[in-house]
């Protein structure tokens, strides 16, 4: 527990995102790690996501992080469908029974996050939103998403972006006041990503690529780089981790140039295996075409690899110039960058993995992220939530004549629906949930770290509730 507990009083935070474990990715680990560090700082944290296969109902993760897997239909790409209304009964029930004070939604791709923001504002709760991705402005889908984002964020209390580029992008897309947008970068767990030079073969040069094999990650560029460099440097090997629709492109390249012994495709990687792949390489290559904050390059640098990356989005902010070689997103520029890295490697002017690790270790830690997020919560807790009439005014004046009126109507309908639900099941007959975390948390460290005799004395009802629930009726 942090000394003396949090300064601005403990918050009861509800993280809402469609993306959470067992799904794997940047948002998922961000939500998990941030929640863990906030619990450590004495806040009550719970996560709400949609059901993943048989994993539905309520589960407890490490340190009593309570996760609600709600049985909502998944539409596309693990994101739920949105009607703006159907999730209100369940979300309202959870917000009331857990006595949530701040709703923190994650990722603009997550329909559930937007729904939760909408309902939380109707219920008069404080709202925070974290944006994890960059968008364009030109194509039809971006225009639509940007419009929705404008509506969703125009009355949100505070917005967090992961890099300054991302902030700029979000402010422009959602037409926001930049003063309510904070930048809190992502973090990596440096103890998970330690260098191990003995694992790599110094007779050859290995270039590692770890990313999902999709268009956005620039796999087409990679397929151009591989044959060119393999021809030039006979001792060069590629190690590609990840899975996706573009895998076929890499397989074709490997087939055409007969590079089976030099290009290894490892397929999908578990998060704990990423480090074992990274330490086998000398150079890390990132070919992303768009990226708000690239976690992969921080992880690679933390493992002591020389990073070569495209200069897109928030990437130039992430690492200092002596740790990264930035290139334009083209095959030629990336090849030049890689050749420069190889030349440095041969001449031995690259700093040793240990020194790189020790340097990167101090840059991004989850505790720091949690501390800064806590400040946002403290600030938000002092703000007032817009009352209904002002909210409608904001929607109508801020979101354009047509969309504004439509969503103002939705907000009114949502309010009426909420009034109906309050009449059906008044707040007073909703049982207050027993806190697992936070100041009155039943899941405190004494349960596990105390003496064994003490564990037995505890009321077993608490322990019983911590048992993983398997049964769920609906």
């Amino acid at each position, binding site marked *: 527990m942090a000394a003396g507990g949090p300064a601005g009083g403990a918050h009861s935070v509800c993280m809402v995102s469609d993306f959470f474990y067992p799904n794997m990715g940047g948002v998922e680990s961000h939500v998990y790690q941030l929640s863990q560090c906030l619990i450590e700082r004495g806040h009550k944290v719970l996560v709400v996501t949609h059901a993943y296969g048989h994993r539905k*109902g309520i589960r407890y993760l490490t340190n009593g992080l309570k996760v609600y897997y709600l049985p909502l239909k998944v539409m596309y790409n693990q994101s739920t469908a949105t009607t703006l209304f159907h999730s209100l*009964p369940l979300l309202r029930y959870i917000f009331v029974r857990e006595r949530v004070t701040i709703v923190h939604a994650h990722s603009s791709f997550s329909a559930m996050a937007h729904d939760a923001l909408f309902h939380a504002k109707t219920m008069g709760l404080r709202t925070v939103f974290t944006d994890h991705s960059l968008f364009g402005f030109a194509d039809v889908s971006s225009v639509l998403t940007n419009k929705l984002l404008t509506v969703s964020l125009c009355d949100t209390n505070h917005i967090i972006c992961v890099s300054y580029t991302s902030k700029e992008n979000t402010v422009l897309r959602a037409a926001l006041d930049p003063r309510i947008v904070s930048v809190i970068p992502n973090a990596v767990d440096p103890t998970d990503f330690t260098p191990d030079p003995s694992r790599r073969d110094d007779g050859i040069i290995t270039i590692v690529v770890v990313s999902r094999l999709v268009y956005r990650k620039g796999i087409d560029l990679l397929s151009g780089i591989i044959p060119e460099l393999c021809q030039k440097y006979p001792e060069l090997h590629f190690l590609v981790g990840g899975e996706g629709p573009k895998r076929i492109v890499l397989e074709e390249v490997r087939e055409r140039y007969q590079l089976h012994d030099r290009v290894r495709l490892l397929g999908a990687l578990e998060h704990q295996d990423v480090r074992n792949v990274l330490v086998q390489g000398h150079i890390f290559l990132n070919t992303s075409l768009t990226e708000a904050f690239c976690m992969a390059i921080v992880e690679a640098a933390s493992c002591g690899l020389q990073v070569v990356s495209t200069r897109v989005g928030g990437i130039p902010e992430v690492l200092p110039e002596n740790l990264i070689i930035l290139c334009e997103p083209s095959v030629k520029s990336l090849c030049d960058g890689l050749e420069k890295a190889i030349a440095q490697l041969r001449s031995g002017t690259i700093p040793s993995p240990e020194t790189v690790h020790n340097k990167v270790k101090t840059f991004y830690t989850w505790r720091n992220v949690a501390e800064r997020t806590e400040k946002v919560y403290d600030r938000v807790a002092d703000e007032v939530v817009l009352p209904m009439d002002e909210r409608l005014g904001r929607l109508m004046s801020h979101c354009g004549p047509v969309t504004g009126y439509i969503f103002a109507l939705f907000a009114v309908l949502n309010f009426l629906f909420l009034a109906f639900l309050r009449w059906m099941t008044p707040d007073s007959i909703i049982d207050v949930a027993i806190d697992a975390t936070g100041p009155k948390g039943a899941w405190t460290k004494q349960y596990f770290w105390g003496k064994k005799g003490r564990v037995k004395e505890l009321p*077993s*009802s608490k322990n019983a509730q911590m048992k993983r629930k398997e049964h769920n009726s609906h």
Partner: protein
Amino acid sequence: MEERLYRSASGAPIALRPRQHSASCRELAVRCPRLQLRSLSAVTSAVWLAAYGLFVLSENSMVLSAAIFITLIGLIIYLHFVKIDQESLLVIGSLGIQVTSSYASGKESTTFIEMGQVKDVVINEAIHMQKVIYYLCILLQDPGDPQGVSDIVPLFQSSKPRLDCLIEVYKSCQEILEQRKTAPQPSGIK
């Protein structure tokens, strides 16, 4: 013994009646509200009014007699298979747990779980009909694995008492289960 009044998860009043038969035998009965004359007459008149409307349109008197039969059969089915008046839990430390539900018609259905199969009685949370509720359940011992749970038997499924009532029941159950743990070998039949 005295009844204590609680509320169900939907707000309806329910009554818990604990009965102590002996030190290691205890009965806990949860009584749901009886069928209200008001709701019964509301449903009946709704069906009959609808039938009368159809009759006016189609001018076929079959509709009216069908409506009478439907209400009668529906009522019988409802009282016999749906409406539960009382759910009780009989815990006998040396023997097992008996779960009884009495229907409004007087029909009773009983399940008995041997003590050897009972691993524990716990309070759990579930998502149920747009609600997140607490419920009491019996964890069944997995015969193959001493740590594992093979199945979960939810209790008081019809009355769905709120947490304060569940904690009361839970404590009584645990008292008896604790006795079993301190004296695992019963010394024969008395």
